């Protein structure tokens, strides 16, 4: 197969020359990893070996050599991390079930009794929210969400209803719809780009900030608060 038919035209010649070698080595590595998965009996060891196959797939994506490849690698890394975390957790849980031991629940966290933790909380969270609003977008949402979390967890506000966290995730879903609508408008009617930009920018900041409500739901489920 001629590599120049696969790689886009504007890629430099040197990457086109790299392409077959990188693909061959990656497929060899993946074959080694998969043969290891077949030989190995232990489930946890299989997870460790699968990591080799992940690396090989990363190289196959990277061999294209465009910015799109980089954009595809980033979510792949994060998703593989989450996948490993979930699978190891399932394995540990299964071992507990097999041995008939109840899975240990998380210990309740008790904050240190410090004067700063009582007085500085509203100002810190306000600063975080304001700075996050100025930043906008994904990063801003994370900063603002951290501010909200500081206020809700350490500040211990009075009068939070039981359904508060579910309402927060509902608003987060609505904000995500706003983001999607903004993108759709951008493609349907490009002359309205400013409205679309504000819709998607505002939507993503609210969505990411309120996604931290998931931690609140976890808090409620684990500690029955």
């Amino acid at each position, binding site marked *: 197969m001629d590599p120049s038919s696969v790689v886009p035209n504007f*890629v*430099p*010649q*040197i*990457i086109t020359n*790299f392409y077959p*070698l*990188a693909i061959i*080595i*990656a497929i*060899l*590595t993946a074959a*080694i*990893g998969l*043969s*290891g998965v077949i*030989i*190995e009996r*232990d*489930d*946890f*060891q299989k*997870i*460790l*070996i699968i*990591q*080799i196959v992940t*690396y*090989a797939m*990363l*190289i196959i994506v*990277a061999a294209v*050599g465009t910015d799109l*490849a*980089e954009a595809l*690698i*980033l979510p792949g*890394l*994060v998703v*593989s*991390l989450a996948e*490993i*975390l979930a699978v*190891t957790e399932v*394995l*540990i849980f299964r*071992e*507990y079930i097999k*041995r008939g*031991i109840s899975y240990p629940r998380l210990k309740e966290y008790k904050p240190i009794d410090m004067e700063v933790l009582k007085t500085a909380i509203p100002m810190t969270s306000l600063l975080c929210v304001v700075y996050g609003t100025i930043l906008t977008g994904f990063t801003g949402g994370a900063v603002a969400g951290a501010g909200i979390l500081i206020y809700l967890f350490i500040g211990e506000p009075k009068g939070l209803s039981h359904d508060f966290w579910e309402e927060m995730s509902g608003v987060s879903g609505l904000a995500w719809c706003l983001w999607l609508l903004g993108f759709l408008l951008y493609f349907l009617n490009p002359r309205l780009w400013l409205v679309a930009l504000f819709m998607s920018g505002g939507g993503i900041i609210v969505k990411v900030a309120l996604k931290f409500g998931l931690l609140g739901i976890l808090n409620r489920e684990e500690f029955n608060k």
Partner: protein
Amino acid sequence: MISATGTLPLISFYLGLTLLLIGGLGVVFGPKTSTEPIVRIINLTVPSTGVALIFLSYNYTLAMLTFLSVNPILYIIMIRAIIRLEEMGGSIS
């Protein structure tokens, strides 16, 4: 994008591919790996260095930085799993 001239990207590219292949062999067939999972994790650092070198040769700055920061978290998760499984009494699964 790779700069068209200069041998440094070439060196890091070939070194990365070699490390990936040899490290993969080491993780799968290395000595004592079937009994000690921690040896496997230590061997896993070799191919991950290779992948980082290949990203470096392609000038994927963000991807390389994310990869390097994701790796320690990965090792922490795996070692935690090993500790949890060993606490329950020796043989895993």
